């Protein structure tokens, strides 16, 4: 199955390609005879915000140092992009993980929280070695259907077969980082319907909600 078909199958057909990220497009190109993708799969710092969030001098220096540090490789970031878009794909409500900048977030956070470095790097290697064992190619190079076959083995902690147990922790970490990165983005806030973080006048729970719950202020 082509990646395009796979995306259709999970309910994306109505969205068309326009909303797909360059990352996803780059991923798709890998289905073909593998030209060097012209679009870089991920720009590690390209989608980083300008640092204007009240840092102290020490903090600003630490941020700058981390930004300059290179830890995850282009291949690893490409794999993260594919995985995170499987975890949080675009749907009729919102875009995908990579559209929300999750790859860049993960690239940064594993440097910021070094305790993630080994689980992330090792997990990605585990994934590639499993992929090679089963399908003869690394994870980003196998078909979307094959990718889903592997994901199905590691996405359900209570159903995992013993030979895939190491993959479960890795996938849970990926799921948690992806969700946190996605929902803490602007796209994620909209998806969640979060409408706060702005000046307003709190006048209590809306009347229709009170009614729904059989509650009142009197």
């Amino acid at each position: 199955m082509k990646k395009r078909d796979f995306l259709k199958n999970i309910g994306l057909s109505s969205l068309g390609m326009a909303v797909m990220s360059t990352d996803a497009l780059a991923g798709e190109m890998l289905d073909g005879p593998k030209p060097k993708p012209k679009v870089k799969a991920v720009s590690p710092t390209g989608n980083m915000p300008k640092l204007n969030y009240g840092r102290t001098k020490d903090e600003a220096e630490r941020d700058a140092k981390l930004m300059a540090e290179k830890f995850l490789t282009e291949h690893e970031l490409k794999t993260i992009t594919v995985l995170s878009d499987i975890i949080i794909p675009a749907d009729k409500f919102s875009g995908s993980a990579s559209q929300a900048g999750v790859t860049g977030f993960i690239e940064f956070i594993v440097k910021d929280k070094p305790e993630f470095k080994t689980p992330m790097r090792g997990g990605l290697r585990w994934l590639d070695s499993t992929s090679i064992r089963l399908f003869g190619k690394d994870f980003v190079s196998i078909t979307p259907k094959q990718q889903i076959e592997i994901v199905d083995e590691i996405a359900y902690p209570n159903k995992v077969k013993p030979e895939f147990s190491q993959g479960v922790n890795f996938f849970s970490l990926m799921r948690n980082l992806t969700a946190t990165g996605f929902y803490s983005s602007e796209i994620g806030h909209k998806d969640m319907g979060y409408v706060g973080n702005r000046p307003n006048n709190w006048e209590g729970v809306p009347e229709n909600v009170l009614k729904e719950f059989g509650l009142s202020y009197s």
Partner: protein
Amino acid sequence: MFDFQIKDPSTVYDVVIIGSGAGGGMAAHELTKAGAKVCVLEAGQYFDPADPKYITQMKQPWESPRRGASSTRAFGDFDAAYGGWNIDGEPYTTTSGTEFHWFRSRMLGGRTNHWGRISLRFGPDDFKRKSIDGLGDDWPIGYDDVKPYYDYIDKMIGIFGSNEGLHNEPDGIFLPPPKQRLHELMLQKNNKKLGIPTIPSRLSILTKAINKDRGACFYCSQCSRACLAYADFSSSSVLMIPAMKTGNLTLITYAMAREVLTDPTTGLATGVSYVDTVTMTEKVVRGKTVILAASAGETARLLLNSKSSRFPNGLANSSGVVGRYINDSTGASRSAIVPALFDRKRYNEDGVGGMHVYTPWWLDNKKLDFPRGYHIEYGGGMGMPAYGFGWGIEGINEKYPTRDGIKKAAGGYGATLKEDYRRFYGAYIGMAGRGEPVPDYNNYCEIDPNVVDKFGIPVLRFNYKWSDYEIKQAKHMQDTFEQIIHEMGGEALGKKPDAKTNYGLAEPGKIIHEVGTARMGNDPKTSVLNSNCQAHDVKNLFVADAAPFVSQGDKNATWTILALSARTSNYIIEQKKMGNL
């Protein structure tokens, strides 16, 4: 030898204050207003919640590359505390087998910039616990001595709440409280059936403007980031900056106090030596009166480090109790998921920074197996998604079928996973007990004989252990939390903390309510300060932070620090007028 530079050799200030938090800020505010020439030493940097270069309020999580995670600040990127439990180059130690965690904020206003604004008066019983249960000690003062100052700060600083006529939760002068959030209405309704009172919280946040210098709350829920409209209480915005406007205040930032200087003949305090942390030079500032307000820990450290032939055990320490009786609030917590809140309608539920309702202590300890009470704080609602959001869904989504009744396996991925996150959003509640410990002579901080910080100042070594009193109280908290969760139709998350973890009792220092290291009393043999927070041994030396506390009730310390500091300042002004200082 150090070259001790005098900051300005011709200047002798009326008062030198160490620290600019609640206690130091209030003293500076009151004394400058009365016309005294005051110098405040602050170990950290300048901070003004309204200055754009410091502002984190209403920043979006995606403006932080770590989405607000707590990698550099203990409570996350946007929290207004420069410091934390660990500060590079400023260590502290603990004796073997004991534990203590010491939170410090190095900035103008100290820890008041990020605190919870929970502003509870001590009640009449809180000053007289020994008379009630025979444990610890009574204060040398009672509620009636402090009440006028609580009234004063209620009006001057501003606080919302409700007058309930409860004996040990005194009424105050309150602004209107905000209406309850949805989960808070549910808690109130269900707790009533359990006989657990749940009343409007009492927070120092302006639900109405009280003067032209400060705005009213605009309900962003971010008091922990410090308020650019000055609509909540921070010592920086409400006390220090106004004190500077009097023209009577000299503020020296980056000034890490080393010791209080004394005259070998008279034994009186003459000033303070400090490290200018920018130039790393030693400096001195002179004053006729010295007020320590550097926090209970730093104040004890300064007194103990201020040794001389006249004061061989440290300054004002002829009793030997400086550092003794240090005590932090107890704390235990639990969270739950409430299916009734699944798939809830969205609206802006930010509210004020913190809970809109709380549970004051409601039981009689004479009928329980532990001597002191606790209050309960509540969390929940449709808060802002940031770092940590969605974490651990694999432990939840198997338990609850989807809206269409489909049972799912734990974990998963894809569009249906996104549905789960949306379904569970705003359906969590949390609760935390904050309780009164019994102060213990054997819990103490002292000077570590072997360790200095990067300024060469000997550091504190803590020796702190919880007793059965606190552990049994934590057990009671956990049982209560489960009752509350059950009554609400919720399911508690995680395993119930048991005896192996002291029932989830937080490690000492984690609640950041440490008090009691220079306690007041009528007997100079068993206390450091008299009932006016004046050192028994040195009459021009005062303490205005939480070090004078004999006990702390289950009430967060700040409102009482402020009231006592105002009271002490008033005493200093009177004594100056009478020529006694």
